């Protein structure tokens, strides 16, 4: 099937971003409205395509659209083509739907910003790039969207670049993402070299002929890419710092969309991971590590956005774990991704609303008792909270329990380890989310006299309410009659083979509920019953200290990657500067002093350059000799 409408999904927001950027100040008055309308338009196109898909038979639902032949030389054929199937439509609706709500929210949130038009241009650019990422029909097209998303997120995180911490945050995000991109480009390169194609359909068809070694290599490289974009271990350090951007950005990029690109990539490449068990196991392990890692950091954070960021990292860990469990896990990973899109975006918007009312204060120790002043924010945030900790019948209960269940049912030591990690993660999640809610909305007032907390305008709370509805209902809808699993079946066929049932679903649910209650209980004891000090106490255990420092991730990166890298660069520069920079300094002296210095410095340094050439020539001959011996 082909459809000519797919391109409009991308073209509408792209047009908006181009217009707002190129037409400049003239569009200041109505630019944000246009951008919102175009994002809604893309959502409309997505809904139309979705309805068309529903009207077709299960295996006829995917549609494609070829735009033009991008690269076509000899064996090197890449079309710029789009593909919308059951997997990508989930993302399209999430991106455009949540994206539009965040556009609406931003109209009010950014109303005092002089550069609101530019902000909306970037938002539209982001939506377009993200749609290209999920609609591309080959790894190369995906890569274009991947880089575009990186660019747009960079522009958005840095939107308030007057913040001094921004420079390091941006740099960190950049380095982590470059490592990830390196993985993706290597994966593309290996897949082209071994399979002769980079399109999803082509790779899927040829994957059977490739050696397991090559597929494992591709899989691991794709995993590297995913860890960069989705802030997974060991490339997770950037996410917390990226919270420097405006809050709607965190909701859009760091909760609902961009950070899930890694999960999309892994599930889209299911045919590679299914044929490369080692890579698949690695995916599950990375997911399990990250979900604990993020959860532990979340326990110690006092900055509301950073606590939510740590939680995002942890929840994406669940998705990656689900994706690493193979065919039985894919659909549940996607389900958790979608439910998480609702409740986490809602909570980020809620956090933004709190900050809006509290003069941009982010320290939860200076909140307290806000539920009376911001009832709607409290209600929507509360529903998101119930969803994330997995209380039935809210969304997170369905999706997270399924992942825990599937993890246990992998059987053997693997199943027990992964399942226990997921269960433990659920307990910690309950603890730190309760902590966030209690410190913010319950307890005593701890804020300054100057703060006047108030509810946000309707433009801000309406999107929050809609997202809260999603947090309540989506889980039930997705699991009702196995609807999402069946829907995704043509793309990620679930394994038909009988699988061992180590634990019955009901047992898992009860277990999960018990640990969640324990987590909630501890948090209430600690933060509701006792007073919360306004200044973070210093006499805490070494574990808390380490968790506050993000489990030493920065120290680790610095010691293992940054310092040696700097040393290497310095050493190389030193060898070079002995001959080159020395010359420049010589010239600087020379221009000040007399011309007679000229002769001395020059002959000296040219001689050393010539020495290099001579040594190089000797080296060449020596090498040739060695080769031909």
């Amino acid at each position, binding site marked *: 099937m082909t459809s000519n409408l797919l391109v409009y999904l991308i073209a509408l927001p792209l047009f908006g971003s181009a217009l707002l950027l190129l037409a400049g100040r003239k569009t200041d008055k109505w630019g944000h409205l246009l951008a919102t309308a175009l994002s809604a338009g893309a959502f409309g196109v997505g809904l139309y395509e979705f309805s068309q898909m529903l009207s077709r038979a299960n295996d006829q639902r995917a549609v494609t659209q070829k735009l033009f032949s991008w*690269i076509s030389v*000899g*064996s*090197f054929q890449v079309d710029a083509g789009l593909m919308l199937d059951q997997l990508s439509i989930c993302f399209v609706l999430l991106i455009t739907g949540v994206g539009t709500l965040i556009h609406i929210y931003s109209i009010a949130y950014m109303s005092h910003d002089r550069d609101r038009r530019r902000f909306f241009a970037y938002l539209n650019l982001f939506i377009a790039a993200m749609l290209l990422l999920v609609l591309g029909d080959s790894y190369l097209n995906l890569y274009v969207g991947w880089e575009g998303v990186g660019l747009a997120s960079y522009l958005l995180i840095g939107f308030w670049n007057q913040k001094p911490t921004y420079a390091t945050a941006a740099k960190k995000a950049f380095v982590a993402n470059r490592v990830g991109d390196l993985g993706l480009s290597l994966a593309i390169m290996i897949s082209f070299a071994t399979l002769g194609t980079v399109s999803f359909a082509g790779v899927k068809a040829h994957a059977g002929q490739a050696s397991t070694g090559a597929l494992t290599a591709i899989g691991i490289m794709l995993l590297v890419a995913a860890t960069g974009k989705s802030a997974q271990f060991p490339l997770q350090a950037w996410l917390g710092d990226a919270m420097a951007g405006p809050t709607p950005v965190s909701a859009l990029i760091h909760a609902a969309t961009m950070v899930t690109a890694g999960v999309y990539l892994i599930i889209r490449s299911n045919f590679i991971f299914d044929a490369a068990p080692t890579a698949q196991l690695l995916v599950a392990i990375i997911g399990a590590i990250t979900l604990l890692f993020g959860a532990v950091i979340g326990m110690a954070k006092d900055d509301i956005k950073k606590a939510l960021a740590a939680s995002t990292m942890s929840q994406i860990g669940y998705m990656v774990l689900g994706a690493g469990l193979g065919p039985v896990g894919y659909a549940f990973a996607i389900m958790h991704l979608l439910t998480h899109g609702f409740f986490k975006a809602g909570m980020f918007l809620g956090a933004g609303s709190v900050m809006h009312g509290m003069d941009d204060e982010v320290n939860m120790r200076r909140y307290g008792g806000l539920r009376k002043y911001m009832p709607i924010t409290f209600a929507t945030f509360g529903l998101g909270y119930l969803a994330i900790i997995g209380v039935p019948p809210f969304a997170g209960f369905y999706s997270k329990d399924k992942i825990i269940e599937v993890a246990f049912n992998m059987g053997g030591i693997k199943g027990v380890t992964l399942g226990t990690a997921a269960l433990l993660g659920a307990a910690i999640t309950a603890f730190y989310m309760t902590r966030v809610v209690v410190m913010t909305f319950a307890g005593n007032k701890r804020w300054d006299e100057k703060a006047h907390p108030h509810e946000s305008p309707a433009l801000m709370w309406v999107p929050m309410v809609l997202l809260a509805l999603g947090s309540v209902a989506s889980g039930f809808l997705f699991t009702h009659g196995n609807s999402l699993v069946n829907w995704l079946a043509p793309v990620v066929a679930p394994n038909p083979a009988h699988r061992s049932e180590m634990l019955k679903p009901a047992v898992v649910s009860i277990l999960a509920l018990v640990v969640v209650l324990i987590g909630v209980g501890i948090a209430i004891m600690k933060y509701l019953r006792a007073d919360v000090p306004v200044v973070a106490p210093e006499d805490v255990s070494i574990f808390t200290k380490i968790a506050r420092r993000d489990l030493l991730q920065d120290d680790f990166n610095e010691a293992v990657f940054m310092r040696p890298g700097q040393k290497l660069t310095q050493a190389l520069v030193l060898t070079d500067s002995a001959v*080159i920079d020395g010359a420049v300094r010589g010239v600087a002296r020379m221009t000040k002093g007399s011309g007679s210095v000229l002769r001395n410095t020059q002959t000296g340094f040219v001689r050393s*350059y010539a020495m290099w050439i001579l040594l190089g020539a000797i080296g060449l001959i020596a*090498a040739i000799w060695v*080769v*031909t011996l």
Partner: protein
Amino acid sequence: MTTFIAPALSYSLLAPILIVLGGAVLGVIAEAFLSRAIRPTVQLSIALGTLVLALAQVWRIRHASSLTAAMSSVTVDGPAILLQGSVLIIAILGVFLIADQDHFTTLAAALPGSPEERDAQRAGEKLTEVYPLTLFAVAGMLLFPIATDLITLFVALEVLSLPLYLMAGLSRRRRLLSQEAALKYFLLGAFSSAFFLFGSAFLYGYSGSLSLAGIHTAVEASSGNQVFLLIGLAFLSVGLLFKVSAVPFHAWTPDVYQGAPTPVTAFMAAATKIAAFGAMLRIFYTAFANAYWEWRPLLTIIAVITMLFGAVVAIAQRDIKRMLAYSSIAHAGFLITGVLALNKSGLDATIFYLFAYGIATIGAFAIVTLVRDSSGEVTDMNRWAGLGKRSPFIATVFATLLLAFAGIPLTSGFIGKFSIFSAAYESGNKAVVVVGVLSSAIAAYFYIRVIVLMFFTDPLDDGTSVVIPSILTRATVIISFAVTIFLGVFPTPLLNFISSTAIFIR
């Protein structure tokens, strides 16, 4: 009595070179006889007219039936046409930049700071010799990639190099730095030329022939003294690797790029690479194709250290021209990867890369000429901070060109890198591809750092500003921007044209 047989020169095939040389001679005459007032305009017209005419001739002979000219000392085949066309297009853009005389000294012969220099400056003299010099250099660059015997190659090498040595010393500001650069370039260039010549002698000793075809036959038959072949091969490579600034023959590059007037740097960086890699492709793909077992490991090592060295050392640079110089070293490594592939796709990819890189390079340096303060160009990177706020258009173009250098999709650089790496992979040289991708990831760091600096850092209040470009400079900037994007989005027409044209004739 032996009869004299007039050599068949095939003027028609030589037309581009002859036109450029003719234009250069005309320029010298104009320099001698025309009044000072009209000279700049006339010289600019001669140079541009000549180059456009030569480009038209290249287009005319693109399907030429007879292929060798001047008694088989040159071969006008597909790659020759493509490389000559690229050199001419780059040269036209280069002349656009050179036309901005503000970068050139008024009287090259005067000592820096001497009364003569001040007098010339006061009289408002213009340095118009640079046009004929450019044309001579272009003639050498047109000949270098099509020459098929070692003597012609050497002559072409010298014809292209000598004017460049002079041009590097013509800067108006920081003249000592410029002259030092010129002298260094000259001395080291002479040194490496000697290697080239010495290598030619060994190859003659090996094969008894000066033509590439003759060497090819000898290699195929593996007749002759193998030691001579190896030494000849190594020394010839030194000469070529010097010109493309591969490590460890790169030391001159940062100094010369920094010291030379920026328009000259732009022209030199882009065009010399095309000519030198053109010659390298021809030599390694025709004469030594069967001796690949000897030279491939060698060039692999050179490519690996060149890519890594260029990328890593560029990180530490604080001067934008030096940064671009190290970036050009890294790109030389990527291009050697294409030469190494030794297959048709390697050839196509290298030619595409050369063109794309040349265009982006000339655009990038064109922008460097525009960022100035009261005392001339500002090349200290820190002073480029906040450029995106002051001149969003120029900063966006520069950012795009840097992204092209970094090989980000939707720019020509991505297509170039991807096709060059897949050609290398196809040839089985997987290690070099891994290093290539790795170093392009490293390289992306310093390109994007400049972008961050331009867009996300607050401007310093130190008088740095972007001057209003002249029409010609603006044309260069816009053309290079447009071509870079176009080749990133619609590379197929050019890739197809290259792939159907680029076939070496032995």
